[in-house]
């Protein structure tokens, strides 16, 4: 039983990181109809910025968290304004290719700006192991699961009750009609990119705190993408829950079948789910895939 509980806890912790990044994918898709293939790289860049703040300005967790979120928002806004906005109205395929190009540039920038060495994001918190009987869990893992659940609740409330959230849903549903209603689509897009970058950045910081910081971190995007598909590419909250499902499934498969199955299990689940619900578990409408 302890074995199962330990697998579930570890699965939820890593799944929460996937979930956050999956939500970041979904925020952009929901608002712009675009799959951002640079999501993993944006996650990595924000984590590196957080590490730079911690080693050069202050190691205080609040200073680092504030600085990382500001940096993430700026990164999202800059990408939207400089790279994505000129692509408005262009074919989806071209826009997706731009995000792939952006991913390669951001990935390479790590070596140019920082280095190839792995680094520890040591903020003095998150690494302590809490033991309940023989089950061990790091405080950082508890924090990331809590953060995901809080964000899911917060984003649900934002889309349900806030004026801007409703405007975002309107743009996602029909941007031309939304424009006629006086909603600025570029503003909504800018906000979506900033929010997405911040959510992904939070995931990156948590990951770096629990594991380490390395130029391979962009691969988190590849791991999180299936969670978005599973939850529903247009379902922000569903993507978050999809991450938890993928994390737990991977860990159970790795723990009870073989470590080789760990990589396959999540994708197997996606194939089965998509065969039954082609738009994901929580997706609300048919999705045009590219």
């Amino acid at each position: 039983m302890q074995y199962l509980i330990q697998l579930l806890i570890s699965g939820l912790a890593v799944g929460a990181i996937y979930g956050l990044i999956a939500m970041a994918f979904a925020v952009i898709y929901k608002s712009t109809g675009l799959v951002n293939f640079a999501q993993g790289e944006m996650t990595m860049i924000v984590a590196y910025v957080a590490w730079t703040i911690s080693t050069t300005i202050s190691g205080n967790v609040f200073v680092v968290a504030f600085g990382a979120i500001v940096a993430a928002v700026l990164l999202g806004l800059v990408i939207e304004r400089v790279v994505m906005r000129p692509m408005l109205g262009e074919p989806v395929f071209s826009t997706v290719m731009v995000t792939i190009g952006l991913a390669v540039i951001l990935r390479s920038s790590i070596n140019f700006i920082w280095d190839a060495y792995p680094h520890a994001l040591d903020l003095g918190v998150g690494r302590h192991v809490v033991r309940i009987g023989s089950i061990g869990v790091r405080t950082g893992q508890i924090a990331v699961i809590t953060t995901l659940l809080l964000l899911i609740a917060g984003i649900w409330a934002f889309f349900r009750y806030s004026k801007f959230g409703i405007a975002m849903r309107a743009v996602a549903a029909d941007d031309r009609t939304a424009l006629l209603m006086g909603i600025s689509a570029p503003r909504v897009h800018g906000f979506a990119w900033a929010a997405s970058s911040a959510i992904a950045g939070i995931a990156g910081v948590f990951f770096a705190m629990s594991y380490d910081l390395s130029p391979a971190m962009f691969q988190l995007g590849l791991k999180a993408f299936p969670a978005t598909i599973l939850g529903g590419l247009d379902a922000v909250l569903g993507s978050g829950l999809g991450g938890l499902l993928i994390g737990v499934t991977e860990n159970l498969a790795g723990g009870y079948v073989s470590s080789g199955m760990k990589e396959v299990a999540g994708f197997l689940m996606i194939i089965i789910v998509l065969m039954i619900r082609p738009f994901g578990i929580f997706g609300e409408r048919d999705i045009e895939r590219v």
Partner: protein
Amino acid sequence: MIKTCAAAMLLATAIHAGAIGTAAAEPGITETEILIGDIEPLTGPPALLGVAASIGHKVAIAEANAAGGISGRRIKYVLEDDGYVTARTIQGVRKLVDVDKVFALVGLSGSGQSIAAMPVLEKAGIPTVIDVAPVKPLWEPPRKNVFIVGQSYEEGIRHLVAFLADKNPGKKWGLITQDDDYGIAVHDGFDSMVEPKKLNVVFSGSYKKGQQDFSSEMLQLKEAGAEVFLAGGIIAENVAMMKELEKLNAKPVIGIFWPGRVEPVLKLMGPAGDGIYAVDYVEPFAGEAGKAFLEKAKPLLSEAEFKGINRYTMAGYAAAKVLIGAIARCGKDPSWACTIAELEKTSNVETGVMAPISFGAGVRFSNQKLKIMQADFSSLSFKPAY
């Protein structure tokens, strides 16, 4: 008179042509320069080894240039980035040979990349010394112009397993390896020791390259009761494994392999990395030889380059030193044939960073002596274990 002038002119032309002919007989050599080419992963995660190896080559070249170069010729280093992509390695080797026209090659990226580049190297016939990723297909069968400095992964793992088995008789063993050529080599080396050392293997797993979460694997290892664990990851993987074991309160005796034996890893592992064993053929920086190398390298490198030093720097330094020595022994007019012949004659060459290097007739692999080291978290270094 006209005949005399014509004869003199012909003679002068012939002498001039001869002089040029000598200098241009081999590519990459002028009266003042010798070009040595290299291709490494300078971007992406494997840059950790590629950049470090290139720094080692730079140290050896700077050292030789400071001592007057090779027969008065300054050595120029031409470095290409392959991003650890095999197609780019082959393309880069072709560029170095056909466009840059380098005289010799050193380094040459990862194992898969150098294996893939082998037909191009063989066809070109250019003297090459490989140091980053020594794997058997590079020296079996031996190629006339390709020499490898290092030790095989299989032999390395056998040495480590033998040491750990003798130190921990009758214990239960666990092993995890990467699902690529590196992991296969580690697994093969381990398997060859199971019978001779009568190992009781209770856990054996493999992980996908790039995997970052090892919670289920380490939980399985703990449940299986493994007391000696061979962590077959490289950098981030081993760090993640150690942290998981710490979280699970599992404390097996741990062995790691040289690709992950870089000092920053100890900082990342934290106290969980204290006492882990590692096998390597280059000297630890905490030893006398390591300290002497750092002293030598410091004035020859920029501050950023000096920070990028790790074990691959020593491996790169040794290989470049052997190559430079062979070219130098060819005297004023080095040729490919002479350099290859001199590389073959390399015998007990001291580099100060590993055991003396030797090749021989038909022997293209230096087969370096191995050492066991142990991590010391308090000083963030590896120290000789015996």
